[in-house]
């Protein structure tokens, strides 16, 4: 295969914000066009991504164990975990919506946690093959991240609408905070991961 040259190897740094090229000697100085700080790669990308990912892993457990909301009807309270809410939807014959919530609140966060872990392993152990496929995995992770907020928005709507005192009430549970934190932390982890690290390791 023809060896292709990176901008860094040619002595240039690409500005993260505006994309213009500067000389490598200008690193840590502001970009002449947009004023953002110039770095050859995102600073401490590996460490920051790993730290954010680890925090997300820890919070994923309370997010799934504790109730995410409690539905009270005529004084009888019924706490739901994320999985419990999905089972309730299936029992109510709302399978398509149940699948949607399953994908957005269980599969996407889980696959994102695993996917970012794999990307970090790839960079750490300098895996040599399929760099393009790894980059595509990174793109998918970065794209789907926000869709996990679905559950949080749904809860915010239910909590504000179903508020009829003792007749019917929806109260958000402690898992909501943990789950929201998982979503934000994994989004930040993906944002801090620099996919150029995958390519830098290719020989």
């Amino acid at each position, binding site marked *: 295969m023809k060896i292709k040259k990176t901008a860094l190897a040619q002595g240039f740094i690409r500005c993260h914000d505006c994309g213009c090229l500067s000389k490598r000697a200008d690193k840590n100085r502001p970009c002449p066009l947009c004023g953002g700080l110039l770095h050859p790669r995102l600073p401490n990308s590996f460490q920051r991504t790993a730290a954010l990912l680890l925090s997300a892993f820890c919070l994923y457990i309370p997010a799934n164990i504790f109730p995410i909301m409690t539905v009270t009807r005529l004084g009888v309270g019924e706490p739901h975990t994320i999985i419990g809410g999905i089972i309730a939807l299936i029992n109510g014959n709302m399978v398509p919506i149940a699948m949607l919530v399953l994908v957005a609140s269980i599969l996407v966060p889980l696959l994102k946690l695993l996917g970012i872990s794999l990307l970090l392993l790839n960079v750490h152990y300098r895996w040599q093959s399929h760099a393009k496929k790894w980059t595509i995995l990174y793109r998918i992770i970065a794209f789907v991240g926000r869709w996990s907020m679905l559950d949080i928005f749904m809860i915010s709507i239910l909590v504000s609408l179903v508020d009829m005192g003792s007749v019917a009430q929806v109260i958000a549970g402690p898992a909501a905070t943990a789950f*929201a934190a998982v979503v934000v932390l994994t989004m930040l982890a993906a944002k801090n991961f620099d996919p150029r690290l995958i390519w830098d390791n290719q020989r």
Partner: protein
Amino acid sequence: MNPTNFTACPECDLLLNPAEPVIGDKAHCPRCGYLLQRPRKQSIERTFALSIAGLILIFPANLMPLIGIKMLGGAKDGTLWSGVVALFDEHLWGVAVLVFLSSILFPLLNIVLSLLISAHLYFNQPSRHLARWMRWLQHMDEWAMLEVYMLGVIVACVKLAATSELKFGFGLYAFVALLIVTGMLASSLDKVLFWRQIGQLRK
């Protein structure tokens, strides 16, 4: 070697000397497949027009009720804001702030910044803030989550439809229109072109 004739791929750092893509074409990185640029017809004019439309629509979408509910004699209207307040009342401050940012503040700032930048470019008015606004806009992009919120509304409606009577408010229609406008706005804004114009105005 003059760096202004070159760019680098943001995801694999390959040094590129791309030909200017024509409108309707897409420029991809030959190594990792990243979409480098997708020029749009009248990018600045359309961004300007669409951000004005967005700024008009964001008021009814925020202030008027999205959905109303009738349940066992009680009735209630829900707006974007009432969802935030309800979470705040239940002491879920973190979640309330997150919902506020991603469904109200960031979409608003997104539109305001697009309007400011495209208006300056349209009227050829240099401003020393342009590059800063453009950087803010890029960082804010993925945290504005109107389309995810819409999905949350749909799931909440399906959950409530079995036990209560739902009414769609005028705010919801404005919200859907806003969603379409912001989607078109995102695709009409050609970042490469905008940065180049900002650079030229500076000179």
